[in-house]
């Protein structure tokens, strides 16, 4: 029944529309006008609307900044993230004025130069000077952004020197869970391969490898000591996942058959971050950020950053692979 009502309503709207258009055409014809001509008055109106759109659009932008701006990620909880945030801010300080100014010019021109039969357009087909200016100025701004970006990128991507004290974790992604494996006392990860997956050994750790014995496997939640570099090695045992740590400004794909890595230094404990965000239930989280199947939207693991002592205590409670 509902469907029939909807169909009838749509038909009525269409028929009304057709009739209205016909009337408008007949009226224009009786006045000796072409309905499709853009009349001066109508054109001016559109120019004015575009100009008003400038204020609406910029107002909308400002409103979103106030309303939703505070909801973006809190300050970086990692060392390198501070540099990323700075560069991000700098980029926004460059692109926001460009965005606003070009829109002011665009929409102001639309209003100012809307058609008038009394005016002639200015025949102005090129100017080497102007074109040089707007090639060179963006180039200079870009040079700054590129250089700072590359500097940042290279620092972030540098592996941790072997002699620096650090935590080594292998993070394995599979549909739709994460498993963290700590390297243990020997600071070395034992071998792992998909062919070794069997029963409880869900990520395929090689039991025969000496280095595997003291490795510790953790699911659901994992802990990190504050201010100590963490070296992550990523793998996947089925399809591509992406380990995304938004609060630490860190992300790396997990690719079956390929080993990838990323390292960062957590600088704020979970307790500190709870204070900063004013949210007592705040938790750092690792999420999957590469489409990986039906439950992709819920592939997560909590991260607790805590003092070295608390971390040592927690780690001691975890069982080794040998056990």
């Amino acid at each position: 029944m509902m469907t029939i009502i909807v169909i009838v309503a749509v038909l009525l709207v269409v028929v009304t529309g057709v009739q209205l258009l016909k009337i408008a055409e007949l009226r224009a014809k009786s006045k000796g006008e072409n309905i499709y001509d853009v009349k001066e008055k109508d054109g001016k109106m559109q120019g004015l609307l575009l100009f008003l759109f400038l204020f609406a659009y910029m107002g909308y932008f400002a409103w979103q900044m106030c309303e939703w701006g505070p909801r973006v990620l809190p300050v970086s909880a990692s060392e390198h993230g501070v540099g990323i945030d700075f560069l991000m801010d700098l980029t926004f300080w460059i692109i926001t004025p460009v965005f606003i100014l070009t829109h002011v010019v665009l929409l102001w021109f639309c209003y100012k130069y809307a058609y008038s039969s009394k005016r002639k357009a200015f025949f102005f087909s090129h100017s080497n000077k102007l074109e040089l200016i707007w090639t060179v100025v963006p180039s200079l701004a870009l040079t700054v952004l590129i250089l700072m970006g590359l500097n940042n990128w290279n620092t972030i991507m540098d592996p941790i020197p072997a002699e620096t004290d650090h935590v080594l974790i292998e993070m394995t992604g599979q549909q739709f869970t994460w498993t963290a494996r700590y390297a243990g006392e020997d600071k070395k990860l034992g071998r792992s391969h998909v062919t070794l997956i069997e029963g409880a050994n869900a990520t395929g750790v090689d039991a025969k490898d000496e280095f595997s014995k003291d490795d510790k496997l953790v699911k659901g939640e994992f802990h990190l000591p504050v201010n100590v570099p963490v070296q992550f090695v990523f793998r996947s045992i089925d399809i591509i996942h992406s380990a995304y740590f938004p609060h630490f400004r860190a992300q790396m794909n997990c690719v079956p058959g390929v080993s990838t890595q990323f390292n960062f230094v957590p600088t704020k404990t979970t307790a500190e971050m709870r204070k900063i965000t004013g949210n007592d239930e705040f938790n750092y989280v690792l999420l999957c950020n590469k489409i990986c199947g039906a439950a992709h939207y819920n592939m997560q693991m909590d991260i607790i950053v805590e003092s070295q002592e608390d971390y040592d205590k927690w780690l001691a409670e975890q069982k080794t692979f040998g056990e």
Partner: protein
Amino acid sequence: MSAHHHNENDFLFKYIFSTDHKMISKQFLITGFTMGFIGLVMSTLFRLQLGWPGESFEIVELLMGSWQEGGVMAPDKYLALVTMHGTIMVFFLLTAGLSGTFSNLLIPLQIGARDMASGFLNMLSYWFFFVSSVIMLISLFVEGGAASAGWTIYPPLSALPEAIPGSGAGMTLWLVSMAIFIVSSLLGSLNYIVTILNLRTKGMSMTRLPLTIWAFLITAIIGVLSFPVLLSAALLLVMDRSFGTSFYLSDIYIGGQVLDHTGGSPILFEHLFWFLGHPEVYIVLLPALGITSEIVSTMSRKPIFGYRAMIGSMMAIGFLSFIVWGHHMFLTGMNPFLGAVFTFTTLLIAIPSAVKVFNYLTTLWKGNIKFSPAMLFSVGLVSTFITGGVTGLVLGNSALDINVHDTYFVIGHFHIVMGLSAIFGMFAGVYHWFPKLFGRMMNNKLGNLHFWTTIVCAYGVFFPMHFLGLAGVPRRYYTNSEFPMFDNMVDINEFISTFAVLALFAQLVFMFNFIYSAFRGPRAPQNPWEGTTLEWTTPVEHFHGNWYGDIPEVHRWPYDYSKVDANGDYVGGKDFIPQTTPLGEGEKDGGH
């Protein structure tokens, strides 16, 4: 003409297997828009899920039938819709629909040719496209559902039905459809290139070509060089899926067993895919920019500013588009040095893009602008090109990309800079050349209404996505309700979805205007916008061959608008001088 032995008035050869570029153009337009509308409806459906997760909608149940009993979308069906939406919009609407329509319509008309170099290949190009569209739609109805691995179809997800049901028969049909699509695209592109280079009328030198034609030429060259790479990527994927090879697969444990595949790398697929994937962005965008250049100049009654710089920047964009694909892969674990190189080349694209924007602005300056719906959409394109373009500086910078990669920030960016710009260019083109396509005029008031509702909804949908992205919300999530950190995103998602639904209704205004005007609109005069280019010298009615007598000769560049003599009077008495008018005594050609 190749079809001379058929009676061209037969229904079959006039409307179906036509070799006339104008008819083929209309075929591309209507097929493209039909596909586009389907893609739009899909996006509205999954936006319902994102805005109001888990709620039941009658419309979902009605349209998705037994896929979705109870009207609540399931996660894998959500992914199927996302995948098909992307595929249809990028390839079927904005590649074939846009290039196919306007390259076919305008290349012969604007360069002064009676038809394409090969009308027969042109016809084949359309029919391959048609078949590929049909197969893509059929893939919605097979067991397991349509392809669901995202429009980028990264293996292993796309290779293993165990990973997601859509990677079964749905994915097979996706690959078949795309292979046929690529054949269509190549036949079209080769035809465009050959026609532009060889069939220009007397006097139509390369520097007298309208910018539309330059845009189509560069687009076609990019297409010819990059689509075959996607074809090979797809073929290797077919091999992996069906013949047990291991190009992309290695070390996989799924469905309780270890697969035999060893030694392949999914990263290889990503390289091959993005070698097309990135140029594809410009295959979509350049025709829209070319169309806009033409309309902005005509409707401002002013020459386009910096004609040569516009060509130069399009060439630069075309060239650079081939050496930036790695910016889609910063986080695949590729060598950081490579990431640095791709950052550098990517950010360089901002320079020619900025030049284009400034040249548009200068063209408007001191113009005498007539706001037809086509002009409104062109202004809209400049706005979206800026809005979406500036955030490219964030994403192209590898260090910044780390934290916004694959988030809604990306979705906002590319929908605005590529999706909206291209579709605005396509709408602008339809409004502007409707008199050439159908011999009738569209209704301006409805056109204006269409523009205003569309741009408001478009920014309502895509602007807030930047904030979602900066809050860390990943793309391709069925719902954001599983993470406490996203709990305060609920109202933003509702906001976006509301505008998405409204945007769908706004397109109905266009659909009505289009269909009504094609059959009942007022008859078009020969040159309604007082343009200078050759298409406005052809008669309004269509016949194979375009001009009754000889093909006109060209004597000047296409942008002689409001040219005045020493006394301040218009040269030739009007504010435009057709390209066919010989140069006056002492008059210099063009803006160079």
